[in-house]
């Protein structure tokens, strides 16, 4: 189907913006939601200058996702109809801090899991009625197996992947595509403090993969492709060995 009207949640994230650029060239319209108005404006102008038809912005707060309904209504009012909901916000959890600070761990869960579920559910109802549409959500390879160094983030993303699986199963009957995106390491501001290794991919590369997966109505995609095989191996390691590894 043609995608002409797009809502992006977490639109100022590097991967989200790079994906939006690919759609902008096709003259689509956007509603960009994010936390920081100044950054949203910079993204909006960029998309506009690269061929987007109309771009408007909305302030959201994933730590307080009760604004989901408002966000949906305002988006629909602005765009008239919605073809794609792209959920791309997220926070890389500081696991060491989370180990000591349960409040923080739960807040991170709110941002990475609850809020995404809330937004997806709100829009799902609309797409289901409309009998078409696309929901694409940034999950992570970190959700494929719990690791000591990253399990709060991993659990939120893992939960998100399961949620999307269920949502896909529900919405398939209504002709709505649900795409689970599982990037590996990506060189973005979110990972600015993580030491880089050759497995790190550029956000432009990830964005290209997301763009074509959306266009082709894919279900689950690992990006870059080799992560599918890396994670297959990671998942196959028996737990009694896995638990002794420092990962």
């Amino acid at each position, binding site marked *: 189907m043609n995608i002409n009207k797009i809502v992006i949640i977490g639109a100022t994230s590097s991967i989200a913006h790079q994906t939006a650029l690919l759609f902008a060239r096709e003259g689509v319209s956007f509603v960009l939601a994010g936390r920081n108005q100044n950054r949203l404006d910079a993204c909006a102008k*960029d998309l506009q*200058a690269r061929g987007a038809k109309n771009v408007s912005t909305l302030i959201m707060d994933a730590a307080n996702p009760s604004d989901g309904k408002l966000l949906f209504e305002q988006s629909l009012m602005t765009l008239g109809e919605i073809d794609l909901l792209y959920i791309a916000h997220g926070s890389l959890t500081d696991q060491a801090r989370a180990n000591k600070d349960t409040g923080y761990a739960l807040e991170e869960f709110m941002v990475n899991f609850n809020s995404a579920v809330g937004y997806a559910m709100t829009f799902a109802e609309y797409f289901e009625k409309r009998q078409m549409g696309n929901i694409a959500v940034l999950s992570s390879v970190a959700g494929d197996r719990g690791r000591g160094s990253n399990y709060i983030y991993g659990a939120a993303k893992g939960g998100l992947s399961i949620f999307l699986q269920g949502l896909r199963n529900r919405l398939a009957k209504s002709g709505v595509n649900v795409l689970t995106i599982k990037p590996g390491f990506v060189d973005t*501001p979110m990972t600015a403090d993580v030491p880089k*290794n*050759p497995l790190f991919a550029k956000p432009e590369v990830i964005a290209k993969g997301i763009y074509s997966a959306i266009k082709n109505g894919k279900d689950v995609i690992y990006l870059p492709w080799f992560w599918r095989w890396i994670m297959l191996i990671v998942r196959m390691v028996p737990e009694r060995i896995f638990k002794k590894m420092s990962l």
Partner: protein
Amino acid sequence: MKTYQSWGRYPKFIPHKVIRPNWRDEITLPLPAEYLCYGLGRSYGDSCLNSTGTLIDTTELSKIIRFNPETGLLCCEAGLSIAEILKEYMPHGWFVPVTPGTKFITIGGAIANDIHGKNHHRAGNFGNHVSRFELLRSTGERFICSRSENPDLFSATIGGLGLTGMITWAEFQMKKISSPIIECENIKFGTIDEFLALSAVSDARFEYSVAWVDCASSGRKLGRGIFMQGNHKSSDNPSFKWQGNQIPFPFEAPDMMLTSLTVKAFNLLYYNKQVSKIQHTDVDFDPFFYPLDKIHNWNKMYGKRGFLQYQMVIPFESGSKVLFEILRKIADAREGSFLAVLKTFGNIQAAGMMSFPRPGITLALDFGFNGERTLKLLENLDAIVRECGGAVYPAKDARMSNESFKRYFPRYEEFSKYIDPNFSSDFWKRVTTSQKI
């Protein structure tokens, strides 16, 4: 992973510290520190390096701020590359006003080096097309610079080698073109004088011109070459397509690959690939402007040792005699360059006080780095260039002396007043530290 080398991979460089800002309005430059912007690393020598300071990697600052499709005025962040701009606007018939031989440079770099291209005789340098930019100083102040606002800082920053502060965004005029295809005419010439005659006639008829000169041959063949001139094809129905695929250079070549023998063979083949005296061809903009971009890391061809590029300009008055002397010195030293490029600069006044281009003949060549031998040869060339009132291009330099620099850029003292005290480069430290040659 980005290694922050310069393009010539000489001198060897390990960054001390790198920051990579994402939002132009949120950049802070904490002190004490010494900064220098680094974009896509296409400067050949050490003008883009700072071994003891903090590099500001500008490539994330790549947003477009506005584009006027009626007038072609483009305002964008300084880390945006020409490649990205062409990908976006070439399909709509817009081209950059001036481009160097690679599209993988940032707009900030284009301004800081006041780059030039094959249309210098018509269009001047990149800076001639820049209307405004914002300069962030280490004090945190932001200055809008144009010909009317902060004109001194404007003129110091264009060609100012990144020393006056950080350019965060810039506005410049794009050029409407009739087609991405260049109607190209290639003419063989036998001597430098013949090149000069061709060049003089060409300037009025052709928007773009450049020549390749054989500097590996000896005797009578020295100074022969191929003169290439072209215009955008006039077409009612141009098909603008974008191909940006690159072939990676597969490995770091052994140092043996480019010897005087292979260079000589290459030059011989290159000259003889064209049989007739004059040849007409239609060439796509990509191979016309950016022949080497096709190979992703062609700089690795020179192997571990790295290479030096030498580009100089000599006044027209010195003419073919001096140029021939230079070519002979190169040929005698058997350090012949794999590709030597010859072009005449026109007399459009540069916008920057430190801009390199000035009326005259410019020659650019690469030299694989062979230690003292190479440095000595280039110092000998410098002596000739100094003598005749010419100049050498800092963006490509890794070795010019303090004395040469001051002769080439007589306004350097005036320029020094505009330098941000917390910005510097290895190049700047080198050419401003007194040393006897």
